[in-house]
C-alpha cells in the first residue's frame, strides 16, 4: 500500500478543483494538491480523511481512477455536519487531507478469474476505482460483471459512465432499482435478484461487494448459493473512525481495525464476526 510520507494524524492542504452534484444527496469532488504538484498514489478501495477547517474530518472513499493519481476524486453522501460543510466548498477552496488509508480491493488476486462487482447505493463509489483498474488491465481477467442496485432511478450514480460501460463488449453492466415509476424500463428489485442469472463462472470468480451491511450479507448468500467460495468474496466494511491510523480504537470490528486491516476484508475471515450482533 502507498505509505503516507508525513505524520498520518496531520492533514495536508488540498484544493477543490471541481464539485459536481450526482444525486439529491450525493456529490463528487475532484481535488488537487495545494502546491499543485503532488500526486497521491492510492489503491482501489482505500480512503482519505477529509478535513473541513474548524468542523472536523470524515473518512471518504476515493472514487477516482488509481491509474491517474494526479487528481483525487471522492464521492460522498451528505449525512452530517462535516459532509454538509464539504458540500458547500467551491473550486479553489481549501480542505485538509490525510491518507490514503486502508487495505484495498484484491485486483491482483483476481487475475485469471472472472470478476463480479456488486454495488449497493453509495457502495458504487469505492468500487469504481476497482473497475477502472480492471478495465485498464483488462487482459488479466475473465468476464467482468457489474451489478448495481440503488433506491430509485434518480439515485443512479455515474449514469453517463455506466452507459458507456454498458456499451462495451468486454463488460456486463446490470442496473436495478428498489422502486420506480412506470417510465423506468430497467430492472426493478433488490440487487441480489441480479445474482442468480449474472454471467460469471462461480468456480473461478472473485466477488467484490460494497453497500449497506444488510445488502452485503444477502449478496454473499446469493453468491454462495451459486457456488462462489467464501474466500473469493470481498466486502468493504465501515465503522466509526477518528484517527484512521490504528491508534484511537474506534473502528474495531472484533479483532480487526477497519482502518488498517480493512476496509476491504475477505469474507471468510470476517464471517464469524458478521454473525454476532453488536460486535
Amino acid at each position: 500500500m502507498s505509505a503516507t510520507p508525513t505524520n498520518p494524524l496531520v492533514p495536508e492542504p488540498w484544493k477543490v478543483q471541481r464539485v459536481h452534484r450526482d444525486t439529491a444527496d450525493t456529490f463528487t469532488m475532484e481535488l488537487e494538491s495545494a502546491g499543485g504538484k503532488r500526486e497521491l498514489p492510492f489503491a482501489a478501495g482505500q480512503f482519505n480523511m477529509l478535513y473541513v477547517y474548524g468542523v472536523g474530518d470524515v473518512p471518504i472513499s476515493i472514487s477516482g481512477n488509481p491509474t491517474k493519481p494526479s487528481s483525487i476524486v471522492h464521492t460522498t453522501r451528505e449525512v452530517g455536519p462535516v459532509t454538509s460543510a464539504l458540500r458547500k466548498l467551491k473550486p479553489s477552496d481549501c480542505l485538509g487531507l490525510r491518507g490514503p488509508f486502508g487495505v484495498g480491493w484484491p485486483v491482483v488476486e483476481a487475475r485469471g478469474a472472472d470478476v463480479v462487482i456488486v454495488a449497493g447505493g453509495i457502495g458504487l463509489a469505492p468500487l469504481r476505482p476497482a473497475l477502472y483498474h480492471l478495465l485498464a488491465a483488462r487482459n488479466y481477467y475473465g468476464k467482468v460483471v457489474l451489478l448495481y442496485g440503488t433506491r430509485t432511478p434518480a439515485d443512479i450514480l455515474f449514469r453517463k459512465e455506466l452507459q458507456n460501460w454498458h456499451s462495451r463488449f468486454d463488460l456486463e453492466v446490470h442496473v436495478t432499482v428498489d422502486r420506480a415509476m412506470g417510465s423506468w424500463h430497467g430492472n426493478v428489485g433488490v440487487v441480489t435478484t441480479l445474482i442468480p442469472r449474472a454471467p460469471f463462472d462461480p468456480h473461478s470468480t472473485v466477488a467484490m461487494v460494497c453497500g449497506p451491511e444488510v445488502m452485503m450479507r444477502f449478496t454473499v448468500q446469493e453468491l454462495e448459493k451459486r457456488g462462489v467460495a467464501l474466500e473469493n468474496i470481498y466486502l468493504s466494511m465501515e465503522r466509526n473512525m477518528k484517527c484512521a491510523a490504528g491508534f484511537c480504537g474506534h473502528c474495531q470490528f472484533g479483532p480487526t481495525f477497519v482502518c488498517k486491516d480493512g476496509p476491504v476484508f475477505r469474507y471468510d475471515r470476517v464471517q464469524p464476526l458478521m454473525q454476532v450482533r453488536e460486535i
Partner: protein
Amino acid sequence: MNPLILDRSHFDTLLEALAARGYRVVGPTLRDGAIVYDDLASSADLPVGWKDEQDGGKYRLVRRDDQALFGYAVGPHSWKRYLHPPLVRLWQATRQNGGFDVVPEKVEPQKTAFIGVRSCELHAIQIQDRVFMGGPQVDSAYKARRESAFLVALNCGQAGGTCFCVSMNSGPKAKEGFDLALTEVLEEGRHYFLLESGSDAGAEVASALNLSEAGPEEIAAAGRVVANTASEMGRALDTADIKELLYRNYENPRWDQVANRCLTCANCTMVCPTCFCTTVEDVTDLGGEHAERRQRWDSCFTLDFSYIHGGSVRPSARSRYRQWMTHKLATWIDQFGTSGCVGCGRCITWCPVGIDITEEARAIRQSESAPQSLAREDVNGD
C-alpha cells in the same frame, strides 16, 4: 552490574541525582484520600507509612505500623497519564491566503523520571509501546514521550486486594524494561532498598550514588519480599485458552447479567493502564481565524463510541461491556501478540458497583462445564 544497597536515609540522593540530570521527578503522593502520581520534590512527598485496602468498588487508605515509602499497591493513576496524556493538541491551523496552514504540535517532552513503577505497570507500558510504535504507523508523539522517560521500578512489598499480576505473568518481580529497580526491605531494624540497574542510563545514575554492593543476605531478603507478595494476590484469573474461551462465548447469558450492573461509567477504561482509545475534537476561536485539533481519552463504554450514520453499532450496555472485556483479554492477543491485561486490579477497585473481571472470566469459563446452569440462565437471559 551487581545489586547495590541504598539505605532509606539516602533515598533522596537518588531523587536529587535525577533532578540534577534535568529530569522532572514524578511518583506516588497522597492527595484527596488516594495515592496518585504527581511531582516529587523529596521522599517526604511519598505516602510514607500508608497502606491501601482495595476490593471491588472499595479503596481506603490506612496507616501502616512502619514507615515504608512504598507500602501500598497501585492507585487510580497509571503512567499513561504521562506517556499517553488525557488531552493533547495534535496541530493548529490558521487561515491564510484563501486557505489555511497547518502546524503540527512540536512534541519535545521534558525528560521525566517515574519513581515506583510496579512490574504490572512496566508490562502495561510495554503493551502500549506495541500499540503506538509496534505497527506500520508510529505515533511519533508517544515515541518522543516514551524515549524521554526514565523508569525506576519498584518490586511490590505487598499485593493489593484486587491484584492478580501472578495470573497474568506480569509480576510481582520487575524483570526487564526498567532503568533502575528497587526492592524495599524493612527487616530487623534496618530499612533499605536493593537497587538493580536495567540499562546504561540506570547504571550511570546508580554509579553516581556511590553505593555498596549487596550481600547474599540482603539479596535473599529482597527475594523474600517478592515471594511474599506473590503469595498474597487478592485475585486470580485462569488464562488457559482465554482467547478461544471468549471467542466462543459472544452469546453467553453472563453478559446480560453483568450488563444489569454495569453503569457504563467508563471508570475502568480511565484507570486501566493499557486502555488507549482516544477521540479528536476540532475547535476554533470565535473569529474562526485559528483552529486546532485535540486528542483526548475516550472510552468504548460511551454510546457514541461506535456511532456510524444512523446509530451506534453497540447501543446496549451488554455489547459495550462485552467489547471491553473481550478486547482486553482476547482480541488484544490477535491484535498485538499479548494480553491487554496486566492484573493490576484497578478496574475492580474503581468500578462503582464492583464488577470484577476475574469473576466474569471465571463465570464464563464455568458456564461451559456446567450446561445445566447455562440452560437456567438462558431462560432468563436473552
